[in-house]
C-alpha cells in the first residue's frame, strides 16, 4: 500500500473544535510567524497510553485554540477510535510490539512493520512539520520517534522538540529507547527517573482529566442515590481480566453487606469472551450467595460507567487495578484503595505502581493467587481476605484519614499543567537549556522496603538464593505477599523452564497452599508436541517439572489422600526420575506407625523389576520404611544385585525393619547377611595430611575465639 493512499484512507476529518486553518492547508505554510503551531501527538497500542495524550492535547488546545494538533497512532488499535471521537485528526501507521521470546519470523515481521511505519511517519513529519512531538509511549509511538531521530541525526529538524511522557513506575521498552531521542522526559513516578538520562528527565506527574476530583462528595452521593452517612466501596476491574476482581468482590459481599451502613458499587465491565462472560458469571456467583433483599439493595452493579469521576467522589474505598491512570485518579481524589495489580503487565509495572503506593502508605496491595479451572490457570482474588482488608480500613477512621492524606500528598492534579508548561517552555528555550530541578525530594517509605533489582527476582536467582536455605531477611525486604505473587507468575508461565523454577520455589519457600496447584501439574497429562515425543519427551509438564514437583511435595511435608493417590500414580510415570522420586517421597512422607498401605507396597514392589538401579534402590528404601516383615522376603533377590548402591539400600531397608521390630526371626536374618555381596566398586578416598591440617586449623580457631 502506498503512503498516499494510506494517508487518504486513514485521515479522519477533524471535529468542529479543530481550527479550520489546519484542516485545509496542511504542511504547506512557510515557517514563520503566520504559521500555526503544530503539535504531533503519538502513543498508543493500549488505552493507557492514549488517554494521557488526549488529556495533554485538550489542555494544549484550551490554552492555545490556534494550535494545530495531529495524532499518529497504530492501525486497528484503541487510538483509531478514541482520537477521532475527541475531534483530532489521526494518521494510522504500521507499528508492532517487539515479540517476546526468540521467534525469528515474528521478529522479521516486527522489523518490517516498524520499518514501514518509520517511512510513513517520515512522510507525516515532513508534511506537517510539527514544532513539537509529544509521545506517551506504547509501541504505536515508536515509528514517529524513530523517524524523528532519523531526521534529527541528519540535522533536518533542528527546531523541532520532542517530549516523552512516561506514565508507569517501570518504563516500557519504547520509552526507554525514547530517553535517548527525546529532548525532555516527564515521568509520573520519581522511581522511574533512574531509567532516563538525568539531564533530560524530570518529574511531572500524570496528566489527569480536569473532570476528575471536580465533583463534590455530597453532590455525587445525591446523584447516585446513596445516603450521606453510608460507607461506600467502589470496585471495578479494567476491561481486561476483571474476572478475578469481580469474583473476589462478590465473594466478599456477605461480610461487607452484613454491616448495615456499607454500600458496594460494582462496575463489572463488558467482557463477553468465550472464557468469561462478566455479566452471567457474576450473576451466577451472586445467586450462589443466598443474600436477602435488604443487603442486596445496598449492592449497586452496572457493567459500565460514563461518570467515573462521580463514583470516585462518592466512595470511601476503591478496589481496582493499579494502572498508572487509575492510581493517579484515586490519589487525586484522596481515596484509600485496595489495589490488585494485573499480573505480569509489561515490566510488571502494575505491581510496581501498587507497591510504590503501598510504600507511601496510600494503599494496600492484594495480589492475585492462582488456581486451575477447566484445565486453565486463572487468577483468583481471595474474597474473604478482600473483605477483611476493606473492613479493617473502613473501621479505622484514623488510618483511613491518614491513607487518604498520603494519597493526596503523593499525587496532585498539577501534572497536566506542569506538562503543558514544560511544552511551552521547550518551544521558547534554546536547545542547550537544561532542566534544573530533577524531581521531588525522596518520599519517606512507610513499609521500610526497597524494591529489589529485577535480576534478584528472576526465577533462577530466587532458586539459587533459597536452595542454600531460608533467607528471612530477603523475604521481608521483598514482602512475603509480593514474593508469592512472583512465584505464582512463574507457575503460570508457558515456558516450562520458568514453570519448573516456580515449582522448585513452592517447595523451597514452603507454600503449602499451592499444593493443590502442584498436584494439578502432576495430574496434567497433556502430551508434548509430536517432535519432542519422538526424541523421548512425554507430557507438556516435562520430566523435570514432574520430578521437582514430587520433591516439592516431599519438602512441603503434607501427606493426605490426594498426595497419596498422586504418588501412587507416579510410580508408573514414563520418566525414570519421577518414579524414583515418587518412591523417595513415599519413604519420606508415609507414616511409619499406621497400618501398612498394601496398595503403595505393591506399587513399590513393581519398581523392583526396573532396570535403573536408582529406582530399585529408592523402592527398596521405601519398602523398608513402610513395609511389614514380609517385605524382607522381597528383598532377598537383591543380595547379589550387580549395583552396590542397590545392595546398600537392601541393608538400609533391613536395618529399618529390624529397628521397627518387624523381623521375627532375627537369628535367621543374621545368618542370611553373609549372603549379601559386599565387594564393592567404590570407596571414599581419604587424605590423612588434609585431616591433620584441619585439626591444626580447628585448634587455631579455637584459640582465637577463646580469649
Amino acid at each position, binding site marked *: 500500500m502506498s503512503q498516499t493512499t494510506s494517508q487518504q484512507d486513514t485521515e479522519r476529518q477533524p471535529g468542529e473544535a479543530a481550527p479550520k486553518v489546519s484542516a485545509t492547508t496542511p504542511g504547506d505554510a512557510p515557517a514563520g510567524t503566520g504559521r500555526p503551531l503544530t503539535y504531533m501527538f503519538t502513543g498508543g497500542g493500549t488505552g493507557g497510553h492514549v488517554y494521557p495524550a488526549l488529556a495533554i492535547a485538550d489542555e494544549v488546545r484550551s490554552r492555545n485554540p490556534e494550535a494545530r494538533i495531529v495524532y499518529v497512532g497504530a492501525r486497528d488499535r484503541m487510538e483509531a477510535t478514541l482520537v477521532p471521537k475527541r475531534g483530532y485528526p489521526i494518521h494510522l501507521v504500521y507499528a508492532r510490539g517487539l515479540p517476546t521470546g526468540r521467534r525469528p519470523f515474528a521478529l522479521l515481521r516486527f522489523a518490517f512493520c516498524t520499518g514501514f511505519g518509520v517511512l510513513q511517519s517520515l512522510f507525516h513529519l515532513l508534511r506537517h512539520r510539527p514544532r513539537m512531538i509529544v509521545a506517551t509511549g506504547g509501541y504505536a509511538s515508536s515509528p514517529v520517534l524513530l523517524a524523528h531521530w532519523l531526521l534529527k541525526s541528519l540535522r533536518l529538524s533542528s527546531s523541532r522538540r520532542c517530549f516523552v511522557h512516561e506514565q508507569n513506575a517501570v518504563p516500557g521498552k519504547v520509552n526507554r529507547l525514547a530517553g535517548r531521542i527525546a529532548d525532555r522526559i516527564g515521568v509520573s513516578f520519581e522511581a522511574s527517573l533512574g531509567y532516563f538520562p538525568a539531564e533530560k528527565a524530570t518529574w511531572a506527574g500524570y496528566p489527569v482529566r480536569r473532570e476528575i476530583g471536580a465533583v463534590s462528595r455530597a453532590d455525587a452521593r445525591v446523584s447516585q442515590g446513596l445516603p450521606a452517612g453510608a460507607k461506600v466501596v467502589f470496585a471495578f476491574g479494567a476491561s481486561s481480566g476483571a474476572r478475578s476482581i469481580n469474583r473476589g468482590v462478590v465473594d466478599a459481599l456477605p461480610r461487607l453487606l452484613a454491616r448495615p451502613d456499607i454500600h458496594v458499587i460494582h462496575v463489572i465491565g463488558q467482557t463477553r469472551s468465550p472464557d468469561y462472560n462478566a455479566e452471567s458469571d457474576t450473576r451466577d456467583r451472586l445467586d450462589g450467595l443466598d443474600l436477602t433483599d435488604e443487603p442486596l439493595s445496598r449492592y449497586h452493579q452496572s457493567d459500565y460507567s460514563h461518570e467515573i469521576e462521580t463514583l470516585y467522589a462518592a466512595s470511601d474505598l476503591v478496589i481496582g487495578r493499579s494502572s498508572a491512570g487509575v492510581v493517579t485518579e484515586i490519589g487525586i481524589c484522596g481515596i484509600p484503595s485496595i489495589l490488585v495489580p494485573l499480573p505480569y503487565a509489561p515490566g510488571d509495572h502494575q505491581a510496581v505502581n501498587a507497591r510504590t503506593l503501598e510504600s507511601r502508605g496510600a494503599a494496600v496491595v492484594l495480589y492475585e493467587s492462582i488456581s486451575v479451572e477447566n484445565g486453565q490457570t486463572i487468577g483468583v482474588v481471595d474474597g474473604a481476605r478482600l473483605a477483611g482488608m476493606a473492613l479493617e480500613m473502613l473501621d479505622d477512621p484514623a488510618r483511613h484519614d491518614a491513607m487518604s492524606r498520603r494519597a493526596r500528598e503523593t499525587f496532585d492534579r498539577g501534572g497536566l499543567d506542569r506538562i503543558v508548561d514544560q511544552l511551552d517552555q521547550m518551544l521558547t528555550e534554546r536547545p542547550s537549556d537544561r532542566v534544573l530541578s530533577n524531581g521531588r525530594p525522596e518520599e519517606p517509605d512507610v513499609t521500610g522496603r526497597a524494591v529489589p533489582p529485577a535480576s534478584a527476582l528472576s526465577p533462577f536467582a530466587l532458586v539459587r538464593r533459597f536452595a542454600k536455605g531460608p533467607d528471612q531477611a530477603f523475604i521481608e525486604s521483598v514482602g512475603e505477599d509480593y514474593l508469592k505473587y512472583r512465584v505464582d507468575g512463574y507457575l503460570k508461565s508457558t515456558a*516450562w*523452564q520458568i514453570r*519448573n523454577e516456580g515449582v522448585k520455589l513452592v517447595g523451597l519457600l514452603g507454600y503449602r497452599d499451592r499444593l493443590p496447584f502442584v498436584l494439578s501439574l502432576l495430574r496434567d497429562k497433556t502430551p*508434548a508436541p509430536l517432535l*519432542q515425543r519422538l*526424541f*523421548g*519427551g*512425554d507430557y507438556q509438564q*516435562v*520430566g*523435570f*517439572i514432574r520430578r521437582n514437583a514430587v520433591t516439592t511435595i516431599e519438602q512441603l511435608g503434607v501427606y493426605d489422600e490426594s498426595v497419596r493417590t498422586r504418588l501412587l500414580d507416579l510410580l508408573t510415570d514414563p*520418566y525414570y*526420575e519421577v518414579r524414583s522420586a515418587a518412591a523417595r517421597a513415599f519413604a519420606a512422607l508415609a507414616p511409619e506407625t499406621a497400618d501398612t498401605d498394601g496398595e503403595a507396597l505393591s506399587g513399590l514392589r513393581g519398581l523392583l523389576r526396573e532396570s535403573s*538401579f*536408582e529406582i530399585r534402590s529408592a523402592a527398596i528404601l521405601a519398602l523398608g520404611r513402610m513395609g511389614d516383615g514380609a517385605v524382607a522376603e522381597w528383598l532377598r533377590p537383591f543380595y547379589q544385585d550387580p*549395583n*552396590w*548402591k542397590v545392595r546398600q539400600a537392601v541393608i538400609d531397608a533391613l536395618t529399618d525393619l529390624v529397628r521397627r521390630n518387624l523381623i521375627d526371626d532375627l537369628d535367621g536374618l543374621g545368618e542370611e547377611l553373609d549372603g549379601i555381596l559386599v565387594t*564393592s*566398586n*567404590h*570407596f*571414599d*578416598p*581419604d*587424605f*590423612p595430611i*588434609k*585431616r591433620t*591440617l*584441619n585439626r591444626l*586449623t*580447628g585448634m587455631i580457631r579455637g584459640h582465637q575465639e577463646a580469649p
Partner: protein
Amino acid sequence: MIFHLVTYLFDTVDSLSFLRLFQYLSFRAICAALTGFGVTLLFGQRIIRLLYVNNVRDNPRTHGVTSSDSKAGTPLMGGLLIIASIFASVLLWSDLLNRFTIIFLLALVWFSLFGFIDDYRKIRYRDSDRGLSQATKLFFQATFGLAFGLIFLVPGLSPVPAGIASELYLPFVKDPVLDLGWWYLPFIAFVVVAIANAVNFADGLDGLSIVPVSFTVVVYGVFAYVVGNAIYSGYLQFTYLPGSGELTVICAGVFGACLGFLWYNAYPAQVFMGDVGALPLGGIVGTLAVLLKQEFLFVITGGIFVAMAFSVLVQEKIGIKWLGRRIFYMAPLHHAFQYRGLAETKVVIRFWIIAGILAIIGLSTLKIR
C-alpha cells in the same frame, strides 16, 4: 635443532658420518619420546610446586578447612608442563623447515594461548564459570580451523601435494571416496573444532584424557610413518604424502610428554592439566588427523572422545534444554559411570582399556583395506 646441527655437521665433516643415524625417523622418534618424557619428569615437581605456591589451584583455599576426602585444591594448569616438553622435543628433534612441522607448531601455539587465557581468567576471578565462554572458545577454534584449512587447500602453501589435499579418505577404503574441493575448508574447520572439544570434555577424571590421547597419538604416529614413506605407503596402498614422516617424530614427542604428565596426573592427581592442556592436546590431535588425511580414523581410535562429546551434546541440547528430562544419568559419560557407583580409578582404567582396544582396531585399518 639437533637435527639441523647434525645435518650440517654430517654434510661438512666426513669423519662424522656415523651421525647419519640422526637422519632416521625411527631414531629421532625414540629420542623425541624420551625427551618429552624426560623434560616432564625433570621439571614436573618444580612446576607443580610453583603453580601451588602461586595459588594456581582448583578451588583455591583461603585459610579455611579443606575436605579431607576430596582433591579440592589440586594445582591447575599442568598443561603448561605438557606444552613445554612437546616444544622441547619438537624443537630438538624434528625438521623445523618441514611444512607439516610448521603447521603443527602453529596449532600448538594457538591452542595453548587461548587455553592459557581461559585458565588464567578462571584463577584470576576465582570462579570456574568466569573462563572464556563456550562461544568464545568455539570462535577461537573455528578461526584456527579456517586458517588451517586455507593453508591446507592453497597449493603453494599446502604441505600436501596438489590434487590430494581436498580428497576425502575413509578408513577401510583404499581410494578417496570423493573430492570435496573448497567444501573441504568447512570440513577441516569442523574436524578441528569437533576433535578439540571432544578431547576437552574427556578431561574430567585423573588420567582419563591423557592416556587415550597418547594412544591416539601413537596410532597417528604409525600412520605418519607409513604415509610418509614411499615404499610402505605403496605396499599398504596409501597415498604417499612426502614429508609427513616428520609427524612421526612429533607424535613420539607428544606421546613422551603425555606419559610424563601421567606420572604426576595418575590417581590421586598432583596436578590437573586444565584447559591449557586439554585445548592444545585436542587441537593438535585434530590438526594431525587433517594433515594425515585420516579424519575418520579419529572416530575409531578416539572413540572414547567421540562418545563423550556425543553424550554431552545429547544430554545438554536435546535432554536438558529442550525435552526437560535427562537422557543419561549424567554427562559426559564418565560421570554417568561414577553416578552408578564406580570409583574414579575403576572408571579411568576401564576407559583406558577401551581406548587401547580402539587404538588396536584403528591400527588394523592399516592393513584391512
